[in-house]
């Protein structure tokens, strides 16, 4: 079981945080999404979402494109190749952990 805990502690925290994982998961099934959609989807405040997006961009997981639609600013977000790999790897690791924990018998420890 210690191997499972090692795996658990080894999860990428940048990806594993719930709000960031939600953003990455949503972006993994589309080409692009804008700030407003992610705001609605995650239920975060603008400031919090913005902070998470900045962290993800700094980690090279997402690409942020800022432009104007008419007179209004519009922020589009897309996963980078690194981000796509990271989120797929993360969900795979979580699936493996779930499978491992199902077989775990605490009385054997």
């Amino acid at each position, binding site marked *: 079981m210690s191997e499972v805990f090692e795996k658990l502690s080894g999860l990428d925290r940048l990806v594993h945080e719930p709000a960031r994982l939600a953003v990455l*998961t949503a972006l993994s099934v589309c080409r692009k999404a804008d700030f407003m*959609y992610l705001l609605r989807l995650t239920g975060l405040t603008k400031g919090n979402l913005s902070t998470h997006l900045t962290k993800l961009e700094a980690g090279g997981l997402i690409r942020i494109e800022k432009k104007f639609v008419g007179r209004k600013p519009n922020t589009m977000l897309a996963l980078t190749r690194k981000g796509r790999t990271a989120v797929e790897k993360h969900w795979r690791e979580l699936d493996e952990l779930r499978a491992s924990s199902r077989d775990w018998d605490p009385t054997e420890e």
Partner: protein
Amino acid sequence: MVKAERNAMNRDLRHITQIFPTFLGLRLVPAGAFFLIVGGASPLVGPVPTAAQAVLAVLAVAAIWWIHLWYRREFGVVEPARLGWSRSWMFLLGLGVAVLAMSLGARSFGGTTTLVLLVVLTLFATAVLYALPRTLGGGTMAVALVAAVVLLGAIVIMAMGSDPLRFNYLGAFFSLAIGVVLCAAGVAEHLSMKQALHGAGTGDDV
């Protein structure tokens, strides 16, 4: 957040994001209102003149565009990862059947009108096919139901012949049916979207 919750969240977020463009159902309502007005007016005050129908159609398109912009502003934008071919083809099939029904029904109006209607509808169908994934989400169920209603209408009109009086009443009935389906499906999809977005949030702060 426990793993089971995370897995549910993963499924929800993926599902909502993938079908988000089809969720924006209020865009179907102006089209439904057009059919309701045209279909509802026929038995009451007689067939709606072509010019009035054209004005109504332009107003419906303008309303669809306004709702599209409102959705962008209020709910954001998702660019799908790939073209929704099955949905697009279903939409095209529905419009193809509509063209067939129109061509059968338009015998009452003469060849020139029929030809113009066919050209306009074909151009519209082509535009929708290419625009669908990014702009007009449409509702798959609504499109399927409309196609079924129009197909049924075409069969009934073919069976009953081109008697103008019968055609007007049947046309009105099917127009009303299409209007009801589009409006109901549009509102239902919009409410589903609001419910789905409400339930999907992580709610976690930094």
